[in-house]
């Protein structure tokens, strides 16, 4: 059933080039960062964070419960009194300092991010960490210019923001949320995901070293229950959540009828559309980037591929050839293209979707790459001959699994692409500018990439339509969810 492809077999193997881990320091045990100090959790409970490549425990991390959340929110509320009043340009200085400290320690952050989350070092080194620093730099600049961002509207901070971070881009998502909240004068209680808490805790060290007034940022760790405590806490003014649509729906129900403002950045099933007049080879690269970037653990991953029928065979053949050269393995190796699946739980979800795809009659294609025995791995996977009604076309898989369909006309592909409860992103590949602009008007998605995919920038807003959420992060738009107008 699984085909193999050997037309253009490569003969050279690459030397393992692992990033060294000697220079990083990970403590055995991490406490909660509350009110400017690392403190033990009230009930003394800890949980383990695991290296997804070998199932080994990296560190123990404190489990925050109701008492700890209370303490963190109290600290944030106290800090808000002075933080919201200090000179805006002073706020900016602190944020700049955090950005520079991240840059200084970027190598350490990149290694820890790959160690804890399984993403290739090439991505954490070149994308996650530099972008995280960029976000702090960018919003630091806004801190004393808010009156120009919202002219004549007198923007004021909301108060205490509860921020819940996903596991796919741990440090980057923390930066996306922290930077605008701090720039606008809010204080924060932030919870990283339970499988990837380490870089957020390292960020806590940086925040402590930056001299940021105590209590302005509090970082507490735990799983869904801790998140629920934050969402339901009566003294929080703003919830910002990035994660699954199911949890997003729960959060929206929970805050209904309260004064809390809310931003949700949820799942997606983004369309990647290849027209016959596209630069085919670059489109193939784009398909690879769109679905295999970060093992497909990307909310805006181009997980539905639409190819115009006249070029479908060519594109699929080229895609298979290209996939044969992808290197799956040790995330710390700089040659690696695809790293480890973040957790056992996620691996199970992905495997289950692959099974559903097969049961529903999809045609599978996987490369014959060697997967390590230990740890969580999934070979890059294509599903061909699908229609809109297949489960794997409709539901978000959040893994390296691409659902491929074909189309004939522009009208048809617009309808198909929009025929989903999600609306986070889309990619369009054509050398015709007019067609590109036409589609960007018609596609219901928050981000539309033209002849590229999965490109991010601090100055550019990001967010979804429909069940992919609401509110924007990044750019000028990213300030608005953290201010009120008087």
């Amino acid at each position, binding site marked *: 059933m699984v085909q193999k492809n050997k037309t253009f077999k490569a003969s050279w193997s690459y030397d393992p080039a692992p990033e060294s881990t000697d220079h990083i320091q990970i403590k055995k045990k991490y406490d909660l960062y509350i009110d400017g100090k690392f403190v033990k959790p009230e009930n003394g409970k800890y949980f383990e964070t695991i290296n997804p490549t070998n199932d080994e425990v990296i560190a123990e991390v404190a489990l925050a419960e109701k008492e700890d959340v209370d303490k963190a929110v109290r600290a944030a509320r106290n800090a808000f009194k002075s933080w919201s009043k200090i000179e805006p340009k002073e706020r900016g200085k602190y944020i700049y300092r955090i950005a520079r400290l991240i840059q200084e320690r970027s190598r350490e952050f990149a290694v820890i991010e790959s160690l804890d989350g399984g993403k290739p070092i090439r991505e954490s080194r070149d994308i996650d960490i530099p972008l995280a620093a960029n976000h702090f730099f960018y919003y630091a600049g806004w801190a004393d210019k808010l009156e120009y961002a919202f002219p004549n509207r007198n923007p004021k901070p909301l108060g205490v923001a509860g921020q819940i971070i996903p596991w796919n881009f741990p440090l980057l998502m923390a930066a996306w949320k922290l930077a605008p909240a701090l720039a606008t004068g809010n204080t924060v209680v932030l919870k990283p995901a339970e499988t990837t808490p380490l870089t957020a805790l390292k960020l806590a060290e940086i925040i402590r070293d930056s001299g940021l007034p105590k209590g302005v940022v509090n970082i507490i760790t735990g799983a869904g229950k801790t998140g629920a405590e934050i969402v339901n806490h009566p003294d929080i003014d703003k919830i910002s959540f990035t994660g699954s649509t199911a949890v997003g729906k729960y959060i929206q129900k929970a805050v209904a009828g309260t004064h809390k403002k809310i931003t949700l950045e949820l799942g997606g099933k983004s369309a990647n559309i290849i027209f016959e007049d*596209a*630069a085919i*080879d670059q489109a193939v690269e784009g398909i690879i980037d769109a679905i295999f970037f970060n093992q497909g653990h990307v909310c805006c991953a181009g997980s539905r591929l639409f190819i115009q029928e006249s070029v479908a065979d060519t594109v699929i053949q080229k895609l298979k050839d290209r996939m044969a050269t992808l290197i799956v393995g040790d995330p710390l190796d700089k040659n690696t293209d695809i790293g480890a699946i973040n957790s056992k739980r996620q691996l199970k979800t992905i495997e289950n979707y692959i099974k559903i795809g097969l049961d529903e009659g999809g045609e599978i294609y996987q490369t014959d790459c060697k997967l390590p025995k230990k740890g969580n791995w999934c070979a890059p996977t294509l599903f061909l001959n699908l229609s809109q009604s297949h489960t794997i076309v409709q539901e978000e898989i959040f893994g390296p699994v691409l659902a491929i369909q074909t189309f004939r006309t522009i009208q048809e592909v617009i309808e198909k692409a929009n025929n989903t409860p999600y609306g986070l992103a889309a990619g369009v590949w054509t050398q015709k500018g007019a067609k590109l602009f036409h589609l960007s008007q018609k596609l219901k998605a928050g981000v539309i990439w033209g002849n590229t995919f999965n490109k991010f920038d601090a100055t550019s807003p990001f967010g979804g339509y429909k069940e992919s959420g609401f509110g924007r992060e990044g750019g000028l738009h990213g300030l608005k969810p953290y201010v009120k107008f008087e």
Partner: protein
Amino acid sequence: MIKDFSKIPTYDTLGVNERVDRFSKRSIKNSSKIEGLKLALSMIDLTTLEGNDTKGKVEQLCYKAMHPHNTLQGLPTVAAICVYPPFVSVAKKALQGSKINVASVATAFPSGQSDLKIKLADTKFAVDQGADEIDMVISRGKFLSGDYQYVYDEIVAVKEACGKAHLKVILETGELETLDNVRKASEIAIQAGADFIKTSTGKIQPAATLPVTYVMLDTIKDHFIKTGKMIGMKPAGGISNSKTAFQYLIMLNEILGEKWMNNKYFRFGASSLANDILMQLVKSETGFYQSANYFSKD
């Protein structure tokens, strides 16, 4: 007759740049590295194409081609010597007994601005002198003014004049400017019967670049998928050190794979690359870099 160009793939420059950037970030196994250095050495067309070339200069270069280094054992020789037509017989004689080919540029190299009859005479002269390979240039002026048929017919005629000699077609990509043009020119050359397609004369900047070579390899690949026929590739000019050569080999490895990883299908047109390779090989044996003075110029 050349085929319709409307279906020829186009290229997105930013996308191609992003892709080739990845080839420069691979790390190669140490054992593969030494094997790779020797492979690169065996792929070199050692070249001298100057107005001041003389019999003496060409003879010295031929000696260097046959004896790249005095003490290193198990070295391959370079693939060919590349000279102007008047020196083909000199090189042929100097290389007697070796397996090194003699390649000659022809067709009013490097500009290609001459009449077809003269170009054919130029080619025939080189072949009669004993050239094993002919490096011709295309008429870039005709190409850019859209007269693709002329370019095609010219290559067909030169190919015929070559007889048994292998034909390498130089596109001079530095004058074609866009990647789409490079693709078109590659298609024309391959359809007209080129055994190899080659980036540059070395007289125009930019000469060989990774993006341009990528597009040409891609054309070769598509041609192979369609017809099963293997065409060779020769980047020339500007590849002066082993590190750069490796980036080309890695790209070759990942796009066309092992069948092309030999000097029958891949060549470097270079003059100073050989010594850099030798320096790396000596370093891998002794652990030290030697001064460039220890490597004979020619």
